[in-house]
């Protein structure tokens, strides 16, 4: 079974400071990892993904994430936070070795990011 943990319900950061939103995962095979952002009354918007290759993945809106296999983590980062980054962030995983036809994504519970002016 695959699972995702986002240990922080809320992260507060001052505008201009670096931000980190944490995510750890558990899969039996190789992970396919995603970050999505949800603004109020909106659907999910794709930020970035990791399948293979460079452990540092760059995505939309200046976000990046670092895949760490030994720590089974995929933390989301941004060097300088903006007030407009305030939203709900979801980490998701799919086990690439879960068998043919299984494309199910499992989501973390989400982390609310508040960037304070």
């Amino acid at each position: 079974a695959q699972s995702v943990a986002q240990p922080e319900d809320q992260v507060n950061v001052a505008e201009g400071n670096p931000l980190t939103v944490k995510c750890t995962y558990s899969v039996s095979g190789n992970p396919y990892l995603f970050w999505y952002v949800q603004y109020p009354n909106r659907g999910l918007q794709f930020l970035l993904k990791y399948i293979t290759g460079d452990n540092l993945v760059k995505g939309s809106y200046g976000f990046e994430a670092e895949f760490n296999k030994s720590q089974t983590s995929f933390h989301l980062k941004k060097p300088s936070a903006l007030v407009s980054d305030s939203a709900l962030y979801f980490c998701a995983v799919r086990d690439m070795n879960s068998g043919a036809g299984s494309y199910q994504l499992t989501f973390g519970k989400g982390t609310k990011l508040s960037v304070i002016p």
Partner: protein
Amino acid sequence: SAVISQKPSRDICQRGTSLTIQCQVDSQVTMMFWYRQQPGQSLTLIATANQGSEATYESGFVIDKFPISRPNLTFSTLTVSNLSPEDSSIYLCSEHDNYGYTFGSGTRLTVV
């Protein structure tokens, strides 16, 4: 990546009635998914909808309550039947293609 148009964006329904949610994809996709996001919660997969076959439902979700249609490779509907206040949630559709997963904008359902 694909673009999904989901409607309605929101609705208020009387208990005992049904709501049908539509998702239109701008390209042909094999796999579509339906999720429920209860207030303050994460996304829970309801079912996987493949064209030409019955939807595959996750544990805790049944076809009588959440019938799904997938008539072609660009369209799917989810009906939430016999509504109760506990069904008040955001419902999202999603597709999978070579670029990853794209989500619709969601349908916020309130049952009164």
